[in-house]
């Protein structure tokens, strides 16, 4: 199994507010070095690293070494998959609820 993907459930990964904030920060830029991410939080570098590791295990974050620093970027693909199932039911109910509106109007006539 690919170590950077599918090891951890994306739901678990984004359940934590720190990790959601990390995703937002990463979404704003192409690639962010660890020290810049750490500077955004009250917690230490190790704690931020741990959160990034969890995101990495869920396939949401990709890292690479550039010289002595590690840079992180977002991989939004698993989030899109999360959205698919929502989108399905959202569309299902919106369509049905619109149909109900038509039924109620017909009944009025």
């Amino acid at each position, binding site marked *: 199994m690919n170590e950077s993907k599918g090891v951890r459930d994306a739901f678990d990964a984004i359940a934590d507010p720190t990790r959601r904030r990390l995703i937002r920060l990463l979404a704003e830029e192409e690639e962010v070095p660890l020290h810049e991410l750490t500077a955004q939080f009250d917690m230490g570098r190790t704690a931020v690293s741990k959160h990034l590791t969890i995101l990495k295990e869920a396939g949401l974050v990709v890292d690479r070494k550039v010289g002595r620093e590690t840079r992180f970027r977002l991989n939004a693909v698993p989030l899109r998959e999360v959205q698919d199932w929502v989108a399905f039911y959202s569309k299902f*109910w919106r369509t049905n609820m619109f149909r109900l509106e038509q039924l109620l109007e017909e009944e009025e006539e």
Partner: protein
Amino acid sequence: MSLVLSVDHEYKTTIEKAWTYLTDPSKLAKWVLENDFKAVEGHRFQFRAEPNEYWDGVINGEVLLVDEPNKLSYTWAVGEEKHTVTWTLHDLGNGKVNLHLEQTGFSNVHGLEGARYGWGNWTSQLEKLLAQ
């Protein structure tokens, strides 16, 4: 974890009439799916969609809560994925009724698929992200 799909729709009708469309099997069939629903707590029923090669088309449900004409809740199970669907009706006056749907219990059974998050700003952030 709390994952919630939430949809609202406003109707020109009475709360009583809206309630019949949520609970009467023949009326329900006209806008959701064929079913053997009864608004009785504990009643087990099925919604039946068109079967396909991956799915027998059956949604299994059990009525959890009947509070006529305000609230109705039942389970919605497809395979191993078991959700809860809750309808809340609000009489807005002037012949208008708001129908509020909440679907909860999305899990990771289908890999990473899931529900819209009831996490405030996060939802719009996620949508922005996905729009990129």
